[in-house]
């Protein structure tokens, strides 16, 4: 069994992140969450940091504090992510930078700092978030899908770099789940997307936690560098 039961989850103010924070607290884990805004809820066994995941100084400071409070961590779930559904010809560069800052830079920074706290115990689980939009090559999601393609590449390479420290690095690629992330996407577009899945329905929070559970499991220590796309993408 791992020495630490601390799991860091990003983007926990709402949606899948909030669900995962509550889910893992209920399973007996100490959960450390973060988001740009305060969480807006209290949970025993849950502590929250208010920061931008792409701000290196704040992220380093947060992990320094986590080290002093908990010593080590066992898991990291890089859930924080933003999307923009727009034709590339109508997408401002600022939007692309914002998406890459959160989805790629944020994921990189959290992986780097988390691995430092996992390494001494030679045991850790990192789960990044990909998306079915990447293998589906969806028009209108160039910035979002390409940022998540970068996350897949990061996952595959960090899996090799961290393997000797007993840290696995994998990714879950959810289908659309009914959260704020897809709130502004037209219904017909969402239907066409879901039609491309092998299993034609929206994802649910439990579908995501089921895949995260598998990667977090101490017995999954021979599984690394993999992406599980939900819904049969």
């Amino acid at each position, binding site marked *: 069994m791992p020495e630490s039961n601390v799991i860091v989850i990003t983007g926990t103010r709402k949606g899948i992140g909030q669900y995962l924070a509550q889910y893992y607290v209920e399973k007996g884990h100490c959960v450390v969450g973060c988001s740009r805004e305060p969480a807006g809820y209290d949970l025993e066994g849950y502590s929250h940091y208010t920061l931008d995941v792409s701000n290196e*100084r704040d992220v*380093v400071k947060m*992990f*320094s504090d986590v080290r002093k409070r908990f010593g080590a961590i066992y898991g990291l779930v890089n859930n924080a992510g933003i999307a923009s559904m727009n034709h590339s010809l109508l997408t401002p560069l600022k939007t692309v930078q914002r998406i890459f800052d959160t989805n790629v830079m944020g994921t990189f920074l959290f992986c*780097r700092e988390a691995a430092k706290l996992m390494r001494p115990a030679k045991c850790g689980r990192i789960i990044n978030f990909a998306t079915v939009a990447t293998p589906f090559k969806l028009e209108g999601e160039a910035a979002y899908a390409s940022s998540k393609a970068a996350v897949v590449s990061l996952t595959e390479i960090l899996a090799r770099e961290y393997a*000797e420290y007993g840290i696995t690095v994998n990714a879950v690629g959810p289908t659309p789940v009914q959260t704020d992330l897809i709130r502004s996407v037209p219904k017909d577009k969402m239907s066409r997307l879901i039609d491309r899945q092998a299993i034609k329905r929206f994802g649910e929070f439990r579908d995501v936690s089921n895949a995260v559970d598998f990667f977090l499991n101490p017995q999954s220590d021979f599984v690394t560098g993999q992406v599980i796309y939900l819904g049969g993408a």
Partner: protein
Amino acid sequence: MRDRILEAIFRAIDDANDSFAPADRLAKSAETVLYGPGGNLDSLGLVTLVLSVEREVDDEFGTPVSLADEKAMSQKTSPFRNVGTLADYIEVLLTENANA
């Protein structure tokens, strides 16, 4: 400040030496070559030492610093060339942090 930085690095060297083979262990001196020609560390050994140094500096000064640097693997300008250059680099980072 520099003496405290050197002491922090020496504690990190003690810590890192535990995981190094006897022939690769580092001496606690400002002149000790770390990485590159004449250095004892390979890239993984350097990672081990740098992470220990980050932890010791944070504990000593209460200021977390990230010693990641794009010149890390450079033969000529790496801040990880020897213990003295590493101390210089940490001093710059701590000063930058204090002024931020």
